[in-house]
């Protein structure tokens, strides 16, 4: 694999299929990162999809399934959390990549960490990143 191909793979891993789903752990207890839209329906706030230096932590559904885990494994032992589920294809449509990042060393040890991935936002302005967070939140279905 040449350098360009390696670089692409670092920011978007095409072994993650577009029809797969990812789960983001969202703090709910007391509506911390959950709000109501204009129809009164509970949705994730865009603040639930802010990236840090590494990217946005998510868990890949197909890997959880292969490891015989339900999505609820992602919030097992986390009190007051829900899951936000988004399809990989719609994430890529926003220009966001996804890379596998199993068992990150700084994470609380959990069986679901085998399915850990990072969403990689493009290098854009703070405002454009916020808009991507809004789009992720609007695509997300809350579970739990």
């Amino acid at each position, binding site marked *: 694999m040449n350098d360009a191909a390696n670089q692409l793979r670092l920011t978007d891993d095409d072994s993650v299929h577009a029809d797969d789903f990812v789960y983001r752990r969202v703090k709910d207890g007391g509506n911390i*990162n959950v*709000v109501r839209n204009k129809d009164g329906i509970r949705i994730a706030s865009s603040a639930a999809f802010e990236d840090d230096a590494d990217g946005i932590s998510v868990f890949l559904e197909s890997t959880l399934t292969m490891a015989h885990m339900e999505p609820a494994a992602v919030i097992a032992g986390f009190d007051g959390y829900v899951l936000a589920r988004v399809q990989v294809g719609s994430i890529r449509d926003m220009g966001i990549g996804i890379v596998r990042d199993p068992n990150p060393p700084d994470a609380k040890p959990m069986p679901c960490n085998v399915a850990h991935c990072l969403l990689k936002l493009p290098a854009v302005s703070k405002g454009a990143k916020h*808009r991507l967070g*809004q789009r992720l939140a609007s695509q997300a279905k809350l579970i739990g």
Partner: protein
Amino acid sequence: MTPLATLPRNAVANPSVDIRITESSFTPGRVDVAIRVAEGEPDPWWAKAVEERLEHLAQLNNNWNSHGARQPRAEAILIGVRVIAALLGSHENWALPQIVPTWNGGLQLEWHLQPGDIEITIDPRDAVWAYLSQPNLMIDGPLTELESRVSEVLDQAAR
């Protein structure tokens, strides 16, 4: 009570509003948030609800989102109250914002209303930024530049 931060009365858009954030003398580790007005003046209509919400958020610890978030900074809470006071003022029929914490210790004020969505991000190290989303309009910029457009949406929603 030990003041963690205070905002001078003359620094608030509404000069009769002050805020005090203190460490509780009754419960160690608990943070009290109090919005205060000048003696003899009534509390702003939004004060009780905002005070309760901010006090709830002020109790969050570092890593509250399990992804390494910082606890809300006192400065962000102070600026949040200042922004709410400036926007809502005496418009008692305008909607209150939904207030959520952000990853870096800031706050976000959100209104999801019929004419459009408003999000205002408060990061003490940065300008207060407003994002307005309507069917045919998506703009963002410093709140100082978009305040009248934000007020228009809040006013339309209340009609």
